């Protein structure tokens, strides 16, 4: 039976003591309420002791204190509960700050959120220069703000500019950066950290052991100005502007954080400051946005724990070697993503020119990272060295996985899969990166269909976090688990889906794109529709811009496939035929609904598109609500079919994770089905029925939707 007393232990070292954080039975230290109670006792005990200094260390491998217990936060749901939790924490950390002895946080590993705020309440902070050491305040990522004094103590310690940088972006910094901005006093090799902390504090004691003043001192004229009374207003104004630009106003937490810092910076009245922070914390913690972001956090944590199959005894195979068939931009992106995570990648294509394109795609991604100094030239070389290419099957005998990313043509794919299987070892898994073709049909070409599976990446591969793992009828548990694990190894979020037209994400997304063509047909303005979706709903791109990205020819082709396989209810605007007769392909030929420059950057809408499609100058008459709902409601309707009729995925949570990670569906809405539940199923059905009578059967509510009260139980 573990004792909470072991979570924080005082170890006597003569005139100083070590305080060891070591939460029993856990891999990490985190601040749950029992741990906070224990911290209160420890601080009280220190207050009564005669130690001249206390050094706080962690006994966990790569974690100092990971932060507050988010599960616990999630369960609090009243203002009183939040207020109570935050006030308690403030009390404890204030007592810690007021201890007569010197306090030092000797930080090795992740020191985030509440952990960082704990460290800020100490007199000194030393950090190890280990890779695992990260200090920061990620709260805004969960829709909240630092609530244990972080909004007050961090600006006081490192100044306005550096602190807002961390708080507003929810960032963390490594030891080198932390030292530079004054967040820690020294960056020390991990092995020497504890001894250095002891020596450090012993020197301070020898010099009288006076508590330090933690007030930020500007090191440059610029810093001096920015922290001066006049400079501050400039900083806050700029910070607001940046935050609004990035969040489009959908995320209240960073704005709230600016407010708190603005109200408290430079004030010496700690009680008042703490109260301001606590009040604001409760405000944001109670928002739906925060609730959704916290849920999403747990959903993603869930994915990390999952294996992609139900049977827990199934082990994923280790993947050290991976081949990519088809070395285009997609193949190159997949090659990069594998090589960057340590997998040896062999690309195969018909010509060396095609391979060169794949290599270039991978090198371009790395080149950008090098330019932004995210990686060194050595890291770049190491990743590129893992990628090689050839026009024959040499090297295929030792591939663990082959990912097929060739042209979307069933007959060609089948022929290539059959041929590839002949050149691979028997247990090699072949995965298809198809976006629209049937995995089950393709599997027929593989002599061992149990080793065949879908692995659908989204474009651009290095940026889009979702991978749909398509489990065919014959796909084995082991193959599914292996591709699921490989997706995670490649830094992606996998969702297992069943085979079916468009799998999950494209199936749900296509009605939205298709509806945009109807809107256009009815005289809507391209820019306006796109802006409704981005600026009012929060999608990263509007439907027209997205069609350009996917490729107009691809969109229309997939629409037709859908109509064939899903039937009459897939209605297609007559504009699609006209569109196919133009030379507009979207981004790939820099001509779609929008125009693009040579480097692929989006320019304005191509006004000639209306005339070319036989449309008059748009007289936009529809409301933003109608434009958005006509798309969204169809998506929801389709989701209920995919989920309950075709069982493409098992849970609404999977739909939401997939839509957020695969399409950038606004996270603050919690995902498509959370959004649906918020609208109310009854309302959705009613609207769908109205649209259905007015506009066509594509809106007809699905049988499964009619039987539903809400997606989430």
């Amino acid at each position, binding site marked *: 039976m573990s004792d909470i007393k072991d979570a924080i232990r005082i170890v006597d070292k003569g005139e100083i003591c070590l305080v060891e954080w070591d939460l029993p039975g856990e891999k990490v230290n985190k601040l749950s309420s029992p741990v906070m109670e224990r911290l209160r006792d420890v601080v009280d005990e220190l207050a009564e002791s005669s130690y001249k200094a206390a050094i706080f260390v962690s006994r966990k491998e790569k974690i100092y204190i990971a932060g507050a217990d988010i599960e616990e936060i999630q369960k609090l749901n009243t203002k009183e509960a939040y207020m109570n939790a935050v006030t308690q924490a403030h009390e404890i950390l204030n007592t810690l700050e007021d201890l007569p002895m010197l306090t030092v946080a000797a930080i090795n590993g992740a020191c985030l959120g509440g952990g960082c705020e704990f460290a800020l309440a100490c007199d000194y902070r030393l950090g190890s220069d280990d890779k695992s050491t990260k200090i920061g305040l990620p709260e805004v990522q969960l829709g909240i703000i630092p609530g244990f004094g972080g909004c007050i103590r961090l600006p006081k310690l490192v100044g306005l500019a550096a602190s807002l940088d961390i708080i507003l972006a929810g960032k963390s910094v490594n030891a080198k950066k932390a030292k530079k901005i004054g967040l820690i006093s020294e960056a020390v090799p991990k092995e020497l950290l504890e001894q250095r902390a002891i020596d450090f504090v012993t020197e301070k004691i020898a010099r009288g052991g006076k508590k330090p003043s933690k007030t930020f001192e500007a090191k440059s004229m610029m810093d001096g100005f920015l922290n001066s009374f006049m400079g501050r207003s400039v900083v806050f104004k700029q910070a607001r502007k940046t935050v609004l630009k990035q969040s489009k106003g959908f995320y209240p937490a960073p704005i709230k954080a600016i407010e708190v810092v603005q109200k408290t910076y430079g004030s010496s009245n700690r009680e008042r400051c703490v109260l301001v922070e606590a009040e604001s914390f409760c405000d944001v913690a109670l928002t739906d946005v925060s609730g959704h972001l916290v849920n999403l956090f747990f959903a993603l944590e869930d994915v990390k724990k999952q294996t992609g199959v139900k049977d827990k005894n199934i082990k994923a195979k280790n993947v050290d070697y991976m081949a990519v068939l088809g070395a285009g931009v997609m193949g190159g992106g997949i090659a990069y993503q594998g090589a960057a995570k340590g997998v040896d990648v062999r690309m195969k294509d018909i010509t060396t020119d095609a391979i060169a394109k794949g290599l270039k795609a991978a090198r371009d991604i790395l080149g950008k990272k090098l330019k932004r100094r995210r990686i060194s030239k050595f890291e770049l070389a190491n990743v590129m060295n893992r990628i*090689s290419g050839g026009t024959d099957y040499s090297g295929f005998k030792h591939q663990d996985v082959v990912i097929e990313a060739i042209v979307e043509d069933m007959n060609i794919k089948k022929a290539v899969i059959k041929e590839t299987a002949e050149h691979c070892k028997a247990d090699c898994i072949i995965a298809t990166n198809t976006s629209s073709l049937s995995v089950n049909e393709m599997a027929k070409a593989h002599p061992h269909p149990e080793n065949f599976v879908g692995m659908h990446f989204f474009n651009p591969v290095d940026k889009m976090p979702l991978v749909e793992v398509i489990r065919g009828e014959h796909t084995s548990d082991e193959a599914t688990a292996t591709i699921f694990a490989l997706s995670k190894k490649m830094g992606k979020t996998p969702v297992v889906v069943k085979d079916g037209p468009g799998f999950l994400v494209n199936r749900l997304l296509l009605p939205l794109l298709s509806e945009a063509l109807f809107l256009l047909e009815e005289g809507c303005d391209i820019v306006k529709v796109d802006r409704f979706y981005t600026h009012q709903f929060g999608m990263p791109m509007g439907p027209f811009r997205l069609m350009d990205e996917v490729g107009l020819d691809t969109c229309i082709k997939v629409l037709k496939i859908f109509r064939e396989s899903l039937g009459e209810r897939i209605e297609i605007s007559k504009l699609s035929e006209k569109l196919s007769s133009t030379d507009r392909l979207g981004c790939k030929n820099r001509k779609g609904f929008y125009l693009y420059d040579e480097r692929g950057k989006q320019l304005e809408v191509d006004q000639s598109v209306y005339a070319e499609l036989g449309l008059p100058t748009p007289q936009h008459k529809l409301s933003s609500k109608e434009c958005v709902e006509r798309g969204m409601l169809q998506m929801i309707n389709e989701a209920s079919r995919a989920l309950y009729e075709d069982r493409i995925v098992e849970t609404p949570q999977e739909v939401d994770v997939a839509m957020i990670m695969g399409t950038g569906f606004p996270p603050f809405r919690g995902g498509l089905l959370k959004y649906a539940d918020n609208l109310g199923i009854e309302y959705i059905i009613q609207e769908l029925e109205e649209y259905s009578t007015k506009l066509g059967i594509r809106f007809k509510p699905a049988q499964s939707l009619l039987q539903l009260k809400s997606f989430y139980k």
Partner: protein
Amino acid sequence: MGNPRDVVIVDGTRTPFTKAGTSLGEVHPADLGQVALKELLNRTELDVDLIDEVIIGNTGSPSDAVNISRVVALRSGIPLKTSAYTVHRNCASALESISSGYEKIKSGTMDVVIAGGTESMTQMPLLHTQRFQQIFSEFAFAKTMGKRLSALKKLKLKDLKPRISVMEGLTDPFVGVNMGQTAETLAKEFHLTREAQDEFAALSHNKAVAAQKNGNLAAEITPVFLPPNFKKIVEQDVGPRDGQTAEKLAKLKPYFDRKYGSITVGNACPLTDGAAMVLLMSREKAESLGYKPMATIRSYAFAGLEPERMGLGPAYATPIALKRAGLEFKDMGLIELNEAFAAQVMACEIAMASDEFCKTKLGLSGAMGEIDPSILNVNGGAIALGHPVGATGTRLVLTLMKEMQRRETQFGLATLCIGGGQGGAMILEREA
């Protein structure tokens, strides 16, 4: 048949060889080696955990990759645990890598060795003079402005003239003559006319061009994709000239001895960039892994001679290798004799066919024999293909081995002359 400790060559590959300063000039020699080795690993589908050692020849010793073998190995995905070292025997460095691997496997110490060579003669640096270095360090360590100035004052314009390392490398430090001049010496002593040399050179080009067209060279070459834009892919050797003739070559001026000489840049090999790699194994290991090797190494030899006649090296090394293999010169069905200079190859041919030379210089009972031109450098030689000094030895073995497979030749000889006055030779037997 065969002894379990026979040393076999499983397969090999190389980058294209390109004239210094052309297509591969910007590629670091470690990256050239990486391309060849990575491709070899893919072609042989070898489990990299089985590799006991990586031995790579290189003469330029780039200062940012001094043990270039280790750099190439790690960049190719060979595990950290696997040791790697670089060998240097001048022009035979990449034959030395194979012979070193041979010894390790033959002795039973190891079973799987990567051997090869890589060289960028483009990237051999310009050096500062010793005097410049002294002044520079005086300047750098000076504590006062005055001392710095006085250091600077010593600097004369001529101190800034760089030393060209590739030229210094091609000059014999014992007798002080350039490699080209050693070829001039042989041309004169063996009465080799300019015309005959140009004929030989033109033939080398013609054979190489034919081998490009019929795919013989492509079979041993792996393309190099040029970063960062990958717009250019180097898939072929750049040296061979279609339609090269002795008449065209006759227009060039002698390069080393402008007045009385006959050696031109046209009948000598060019400075070249490139890399080549082979996979060596013990016969028992290869068999247990299911490989079908291409050749067995029957023997090798290195021998020394006068540095100023280094071009005759093959004549000195070959009889020793033959003796070690228990074979006769006439058993050799195919010969790769490196073409450092047309004159040097022709001098070797004469020497090997000469009773007197073989008796007096080599201590043999008589001439080794004439070389049938139809078995010599049948896919062209270094005059056309180029001679990246640290990689050529492996290239000769690779080309020989692949051609022996095509022609079903039982025994073949790869031999070359070595700057500093040595010769190297290796005898292969085809694996059926």
